[in-house]
């Protein structure tokens, strides 16, 4: 299955040995060397010891997912080798730290095992043992035919961002050079991927989903972010906190998630575009705030980056297990929108949409990610800022308010969205209310049942126009395929990567991607489904939550499902295998 040539590099060792930094530098060097990369890390919830792996899939064509098959493995511990051996490509090269790895099954396939006495190499060259990962980067530079200048430049930038001293950066750069020369002279390695330097295209960038969300919120003129740390959403808080002054954004690490969401609602009411972010367990605490945003019609953007649950689950792993929860959570009847980006690019653009939808419809909007999207790096085209439009919806100016007699914040209006004033504006006084209320916001009860009915109908009227604006379900591949795969969120990358292989010579499989899992655009989806012969819904959860939501909305059965719930995302290889089995 050598389709597009993708080579996957992987490093494994204990926490604290710098695998993630090494992978990031390698992946970024791909960008400057006109290659494509996709970086993903698996790590435990601990700071030292255990097993941490970082994996980079590299190609001279765009890479949409991390591959399972490893072509080059750097094993810094026995555990790392034992864990990764089952995923090695038949022709893999395995570099292992000969001080740490003692048991090697050399019978397996054509795999070549290359011992590295990294500590001796370091000692001979007066290199600190903390820089073994830089030696490895030097060795890896040969494999991908990297100019070490590019690699060193990326290393400087990454280490500088991590607040490392100039002296330390210099020493690491030296270690790269020594590793590089060692690979040439002693190991006699040859490049496996010749760099193509003639890539003519628009500017490209490399970033994670969380970084893209942070950037998206800045371009959306988000003025307030409050959160309580929770993997895998925490890095959004870190990024925004670091840039807060520059962006004039108020960033608050609040005492708990309940405070985080209520602060964001308070800030939104007072006029700032506001966002909060967490993972499923943190959102459980926020759910009362979700209701308040809906009842008071206060715009709000909520990020939920999923990890496997229930309860604390597996903190540093990935799953799509919160979809039904977010779609249904809340006491009382109300609407919300769930946008599910599939990669950093969509994470950016969907963030801009999320703020616009929150303002236009005056309701809570979710950005639903998972650890795989939040933390994997992908090389994409630079963002097109020309097309970004900020729409603050029906927000009144003081001038407009001056012309209104007896302003009614919750006025009954056909499309359900009543014009909004902001505290501090003259002539705009109103009460935002979590209690059922009249047009001014004053509390009412069941003795005014007519008002209750009208307010309910007003809030529900908003949903009628919503589908015109939401991103539509999209078909990838040719219609009339024998088999149609259906997915959402992070399923898209592995499936698209698999389709590149599967669709090279035939058209027996295609893919329907659902960017907005809730509310489901039933009309658009029905049209796409009309010509399908056989469908499989692919999801990173046990039950098939999207499949169930579709059954509910469409009244159709989606019996064939392909689910994975071990804490890992799908790999393209698994999709290929599934399709081959089905056809």
């Amino acid at each position, binding site marked *: 299955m050598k389709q597009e040539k993708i080579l996957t590099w992987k490093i494994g060792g204990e926490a604290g040995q710098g695998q993630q930094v090494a992978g990031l530098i390698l992946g970024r060097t791909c960008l400057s060397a006109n290659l494509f990369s996709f970086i993903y890390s698996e790590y435990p919830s601990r700071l030292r010891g255990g097993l941490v792996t970082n994996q980079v899939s590299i190609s001279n064509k765009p890479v949409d997912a991390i591959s399972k098959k490893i072509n080059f493995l750097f094993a810094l511990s026995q555990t790392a080798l034992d864990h990764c051996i089952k995923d090695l490509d038949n022709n893999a090269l395995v570099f292992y730290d000969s001080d740490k790895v003692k048991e090697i099954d050399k019978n397996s396939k054509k795999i070549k095992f290359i011992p590295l006495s990294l500590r001796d190499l370091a000692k001979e060259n007066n290199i600190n043992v903390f820089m073994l990962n830089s030696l490895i980067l030097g060795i890896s530079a040969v494999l991908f035919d990297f100019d070490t200048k590019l690699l060193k430049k990326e290393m400087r930038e990454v280490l500088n961002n991590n607040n490392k001293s100039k002296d330390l950066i210099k020493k690491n750069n030296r270690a790269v050079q020594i590793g590089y020369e060692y690979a040439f002279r002693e190991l006699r390695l040859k490049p496996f991927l010749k760099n193509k330097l003639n890539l003519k295209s628009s500017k490209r960038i490399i970033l994670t989903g969380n970084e893209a969300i942070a950037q998206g919120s800045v371009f959306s003129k988000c003025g307030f972010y409050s959160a309580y740390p929770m993997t895998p959403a925490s890095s959004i808080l870190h990024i925004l906190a670091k840039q807060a002054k520059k962006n004039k954004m108020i960033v608050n690490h609040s005492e708990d998630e309940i*405070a985080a969401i*209520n602060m964001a609602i308070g800030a939104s009411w007072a006029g700032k575009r506001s966002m909060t972010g967490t993972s499923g367990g943190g959102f459980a605490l926020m759910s009362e705030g979700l209701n308040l945003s809906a009842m008071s019609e206060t715009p709000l953007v909520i990020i939920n980056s999923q990890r496997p649950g229930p309860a604390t689950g597996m903190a540093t792993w990935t799953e799509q297990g919160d979809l039904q929860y977010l779609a249904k959570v809340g006491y009382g009847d109300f609407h919300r929108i769930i946008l599910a980006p599939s990669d950093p690019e969509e994470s950016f653009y969907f963030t801009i949409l999320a703020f616009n939808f929150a303002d236009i419809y005056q309701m809570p909007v979710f950005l639903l990610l998972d650890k795989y999207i939040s933390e994997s790096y992908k090389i994409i085209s630079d963002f097109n800022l020309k097309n970004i439009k900020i729409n603050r919806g029906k927000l009144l100016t003081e001038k407009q308010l001056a012309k209104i007699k007896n302003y009614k914040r919750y006025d009954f209006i056909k499309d359900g969205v009543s014009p909004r004033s902001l505290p501090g504006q003259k002539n705009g006084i109103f009460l935002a209310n979590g209690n059922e209320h009249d047009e001014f916001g004053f509390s009412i009860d069941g003795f005014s049942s007519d008002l209750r009915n009208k307010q309910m109908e007003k809030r529900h009227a908003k949903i009628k126009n919503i589908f015109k604006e939401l991103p539509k379900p999209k078909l990838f591949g040719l219609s009339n395929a024998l088999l149609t795969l259906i997915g959402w969120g992070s399923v898209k990358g592995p499936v698209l990567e698999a389709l590149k292989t599967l669709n090279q010579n035939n058209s027996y499989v295609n893919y329907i991607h659902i960017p907005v899992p809730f509310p489901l655009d039933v009309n658009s989806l029905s049209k796409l489904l009309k010509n399908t012969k056989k469908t499989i819904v692919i999801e990173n959860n046990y039950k098939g939550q999207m499949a169930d939501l579709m059954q509910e909305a469409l009244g159709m059965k989606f019996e064939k499902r392909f689910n994975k719930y071990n804490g890992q995302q799908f790999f393209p290889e698994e999709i290929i295998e599934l399709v081959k089995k089905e056809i």
Partner: protein
Amino acid sequence: MIKQSDFITSNKSNWCPRCSNFSIRAALIKAFSELGLKPYEIAMIFDIGCAGNACNLYNTYGFHGLHGRTVPLAVGAKLANDKLTVIGIAGDGGAYGEGLNHFIEAARSNYNITLIVSNNRLYSLTTGQASPTSERGTKTKSTPDGVNKTGLNPLLIALSAGASFVARGYADEVEHLSEIFKKAINHKGFSLIDILQPCITLDKKNTREWYKERIYQLDNNWPVKDKNKAIIKVQEWRDKIPIGIFFEEK
């Protein structure tokens, strides 16, 4: 100057006749008026309960939030628009029970908001259960054998958490209360005004008469900058109960 009546709506209250919440409102609109505030510059955040039901009665920007979440709503609003005068109105249940961690965090962070707590040491709107400030032994619907916990001293908590303005008022002493409000609103930082208030309908022990016998005002020479003295003074209870501004950090 803007009249006191400009700060209230024509809505009817749902408080019991003669409830001291009326006195608290009178003291607050007096303070607003004397400070020269304009209704649209004020953002009031209301908790759930009898105190929070004042939401319909003030002609200012208002947010009637969820139980216990007055403080984070208020903090969010203040951080978002520093020009607003942000006032939180809560009861002892919301401020010291459901929302205790928010209260402590706001004191620690010294956010520039004013938190006014109607402390009747009882859950009243839910028909009379024990509150965090109920005295040990108090028999209520939820504690028929008497509360077997220590009653919280919110002023002591506020002082230890770093609040920079800590005061206690008595609901029916409108003039005194209004002066405290004015100073609290002008204070740059987190201000707590815990207001002792008899629930005239449900509380047969801590009545108006009970409080009147015990309440006394701190005198003008009280060393308001001395936190250690404040920590001792706020614990004075039983026969004599001091009211006034115990601590203000300038």
